[in-house]
């Protein structure tokens, strides 16, 4: 019995002193292997009398359990130390750059068009479209600008060559030829005519899109974007127009202190016609929309043209002007995008410079929603 205690003592010391799993295994074999001293001690039990056995067995079993436990514990320690050493050897310099996944962007014009669609959808407006290569009739005549109308001169129109046979010196066939003369639409207003012809009244639409004028300087490009608005129904008047634009600007700029000023103006396709000014102030070299234009430090800025649709336009579009009336407006999309998001160079919109697009473009996940506010904050 004394041997067992001594052996156990030295075995536990040896186990504790094992520095590798192999050394530990040697200790296991020496103690618990087939010929190990614990195993041999267990075998002696067979030769013992039942009384002796009853006394010795628990002691030997206890030693066996103690040794096995010590080995397990040591094994776990050694394994943990080995893993730790391995992990330590796997250390990375995580200040090195991760692989880049390229970031794309949505162009401000598209983003703002989506914002427009979202805001106006809430007011019951659908989005309508029409061709950019238009005929003279839809772009001018049906909008109450016949061939001799002086307002045509204000449009700087891009024309396509007259088709053979269409042009003629005699005035009557000249008129017919002119109706079909193809041009780049100078405004989105022809969509009014097309939409009314197609679906009639009542109607609520906006028509965003490209328009073209032969004009190029610091603030004008020969192609730009406009949005047309059209509401035709019974009992629609200028007050509704004012509310609609006010409501739109409040939602678009996400501020309540929007004030509009209507000024009488002239467009052949509306009567009465009004220019829409919005109050703004200067912050640094930026114009910030908001506040009353007559207040200290504020002024008015022209944002678009509008008015009550001229009854002749309704007639051209096949709508009974004695039953229906309504308003139309036009706004520059690039312009309101610049005002909202702080771009100052219109020409850069159309350059496709990745640096500009990364800076001023929008994340694809900035999808305008009413609940989150249609604007994408910087």
């Amino acid at each position, binding site marked *: 019995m004394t041997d067992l205690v001594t052996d156990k003592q030295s075995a536990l010391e040896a186990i504790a002193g094992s520095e590798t799993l192999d050394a530990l295994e040697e200790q296991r074999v020496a103690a618990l292997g087939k010929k190990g001293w614990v195993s041999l001690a267990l075998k002696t039990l067979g030769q013992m009398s039942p009384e002796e056995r009853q006394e010795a067995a628990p002691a030997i079993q206890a030693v066996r359990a103690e040794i096995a436990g010590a080995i397990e514990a040591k094994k776990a320690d050694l394994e943990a130390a080995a893993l730790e050493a391995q992990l330590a050897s796997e250390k990375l310099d995580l200040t*090195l*750059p991760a*692989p880049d*996944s*390229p*970031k*794309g*962007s*949505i162009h401000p*014009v*598209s983003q703002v068009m989506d914002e427009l*669609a979202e805001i106006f*959808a809430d*007011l*019951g407006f659908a*989005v309508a479209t029409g*061709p950019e290569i238009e005929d003279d009739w839809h772009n001018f005549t049906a909008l109450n600008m016949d*061939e001799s*109308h*002086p307002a045509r001169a204000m449009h700087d129109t*891009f*024309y*396509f*060559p007259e088709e053979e046979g269409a042009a003629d010196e005699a*005035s009557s066939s000249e008129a017919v030829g002119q109706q079909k003369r*193809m041009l*780049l639409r100078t405004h989105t207003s022809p969509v009014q005519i097309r939409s009314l012809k197609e679906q009639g009244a009542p109607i*609520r639409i906006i028509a965003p899109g*490209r328009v073209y004028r*032969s004009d190029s300087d610091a603030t004008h490009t*020969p*192609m730009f974007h406009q949005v047309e608005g059209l509401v035709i129904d019974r*009992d629609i*008047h*200028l*007050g*509704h*127009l*004012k*509310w*609609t634009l006010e409501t739109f600007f409040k939602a678009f700029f996400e501020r309540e202190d929007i004030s509009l000023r*209507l*000024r*009488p*103006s*002239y467009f*052949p396709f509306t*009567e*009465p016609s009004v220019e829409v000014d919005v109050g703004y102030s200067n912050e640094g070299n930026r114009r910030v929309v908001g506040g009353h234009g007559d207040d200290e430090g504020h002024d008015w800025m022209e944002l678009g043209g509008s008015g*009550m649709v001229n*009854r*002749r336009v309704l007639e051209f579009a096949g709508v009974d002007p004695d039953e229906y*009336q309504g308003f139309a407006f036009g706004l520059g999309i690039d312009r309101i995008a610049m005002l909202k998001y702080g771009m100052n160079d219109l020409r850069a919109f*159309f*350059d*496709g*410079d*990745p640096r500009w*697009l990364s800076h001023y473009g929008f994340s*694809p996940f900035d999808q305008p929603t009413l609940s989150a506010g249609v604007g994408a904050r910087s």
Partner: protein
Amino acid sequence: MKFSTTWLKDHLQTDASLQEILDALNAIGLEVEGVEDPAELLKGFQVAHVLSAEKHPDADKLQVLKVDTGDGEPLQVVCGAPNARAGMKGVLGLPGAVVPSNGMELRKAAIRGVESTGMMCSARELDLGDDHDGIIELPEDASVGHSFADYQGSSPVMDVAITPNRPDCMGVYGIARDLAAAGLGTLKPIAFPKFEADGVCPVEIRTDDPEGCPAFYGRVIKGVKNGPSPDWLQQRLKSAGQRPISLLVDLTNYLMLAFGRPAHVYDLAKLSGAVVARRAKDGEEVLALNEKTYTLDPSMVVIADEHEVHDVAGIMGGENSGVQDDTTDVLLEIAYFDPPRIGVTGRKLGLASDARTRFERGVDPNFLQEGLDLLTGLIVELAGGTASEDVHAGSPPSEAKVVAFDTGLTARLGGVDVPADEQRRILESLDFAVSEDWQVTCPLRRHDIEGPADLVEEVVRIHGLDAVESVALPRMEGVARPTATPAQIMERKLRRAAAASGLHEAVTWSFLPDAEAEHFAPENTALWSLDNPISEDMKVMRPSLLPGLLMAAKRNADRGGPSTRAFELGRRYFRGSDGLSDERATLGVVLAGEKTPRGWATGKAQGFDAYDAKGIALELLAAAGAPAEKLMVMEPVAEGTGTQFHPGQAATLRLGPKKVLARFGMLHPATLKAFDLDGPVAAVEIFLDAIPAKKAASGFARASFTPPALQAVTRDFAFLVPEDLAASDLLRAVRGAEKNAITDGRIFDVFTGGSLPEGKKSLALEVTLQPQDKTFKDADLKAISDKVVAAAAKLGAELRG
């Protein structure tokens, strides 16, 4: 239109301040585009009396003046002008004043050791003329102690934009009338200088074209003396931005600018025979006042004598009969021309003038006699001479439009409630005659009034648009309904999918240079090419989205940008069979430069390849809702791919053999050369109009699906196949071998060369087998494998050992 407040007050009796006038102009639709105040410009310049002039002690050409500005002690001023002398009156610029001609601020300074407080000014220094030989000499009675601006009577000049419907406001008088109606003061009656008409007009005046020139009034004045205009006239013309020329010319301009009434004065000595308004003969020429020769046609109206054309009617006079300084006898012309014809003529000739602007918009048919008498009176008063009696050929339109007006319309259309008597007052103040029962007779000059809506506009603009209150549009009940069309929904998704896959959205011009457009034009297709492009670079409507993106990529590369990943969603423009526009929604992608830059983990920089393009094409087609699993990749240079792409590294994606949804791949070196790009460049073009629309009626619920309970197993096969066998063909055959079991097939290795026989390649596939209601037994798997091998064998594939 530019005019001074002094001029405005010739016609408007008012105490309103400048700001009140400007606000009123804006409020009634006469938009103020600018104001210039000469008093601001001439601040610090005073009327001054030179008390003494002594020689400068140290300079021969300088004098030392003592100058009185009426403000205490006389000032000492050094002056080099030869005409400076004691007793004269002139203009002194005080320290702090800014010289208008050069922007220099005057300071107190010592000139050759003598202190000088300010500067005596020449006309040129004050931008008042070209005279710089000496300082300005003011008359004896000029009163010292006033600012020079006050003395000069110069007043603020406003620039007002007149809309094309208001030719009646293209004269100061008309603007005064509108302001008076708006309550800014009282319109003064026109002052007609008196003259005696003596004898019949010696020249026969006719109109042979009553349609183009319904009325031609005239008279002769003999014995006039032309010369410079008086100051008041010069000042008015200058405020309008016009250069005074001579009395006779200035007076016609004055009539036009003050009353919107163009007129013409001929030198009688240059005319022979009757003076007639008629149509031009085909090819007839006229040398106009702008010294250019115009060739006319019979649609144009001219004024001619028996020899030649002297006037493109209503647009510009002729050089040969214009008045000169020595002109003594003149013929005055006041006519009425058909407005549309003037516009057409002006556009045909490309000739603009102040007269045309007024005639084509419509002058007042009721102001011919007054205009003629006013011009005659002014000429006789200022240039002398004897006027003949007037002659009238034809008569101007005289039938006034009568509009039945319902005052309630002002509220119904204009959204503002204006009492009926106020509406009456406004209309009458604008010279509309309003009967008891609201029959409104319009003044003849208001060509713009077509019906009741125009009267609403008159009432509302004078009453004030500020009075229009916002009224909410009626709303549908409940939550707003969706309004976007399937095409709009698809485009929105596609844009965001493209941006999410790492592409920047660009917006490029719809028009291209000819060569770049033609390079991408489909064969035998005539493109839309502008008649009047703004430049040759913006001439032809794009037949593809790629040229614009390639040009952007080129600009980016030139700026040193390492890579371009750009897309654009927009229209391509073609000609429809009906001659109208056929505009097709398209998405273009260009991948140029580096796909990955050199990196510590990835090594050298890598460019884009055709598989990048394919990946994007498939991803975006899926986002657009195209049935990606049904798409076929078709051989390169097949119809639809186009010659712009690499013949071996480009393909189309089709739905069925004909319907091309997209093309993708590497661009042809010739394309890169045409766009001056260093390659390789990958591109994608997706034809959105070809993508079948999702059925709008389909609901929200998906087809029902439960993930299979049994585990799928995979089997690998390696086949030796002919080198030109398309991988997709083998894949399709294998997947079709046992449709119930095979749910996926994937090529994981492609190998050529090595020990493989000539003309062969090895394709290795992983096939996924999905057991349905019971697990596969070895025999099942064997049977499926045999079917796979057999199906592949039909394509010439042998299983490798």
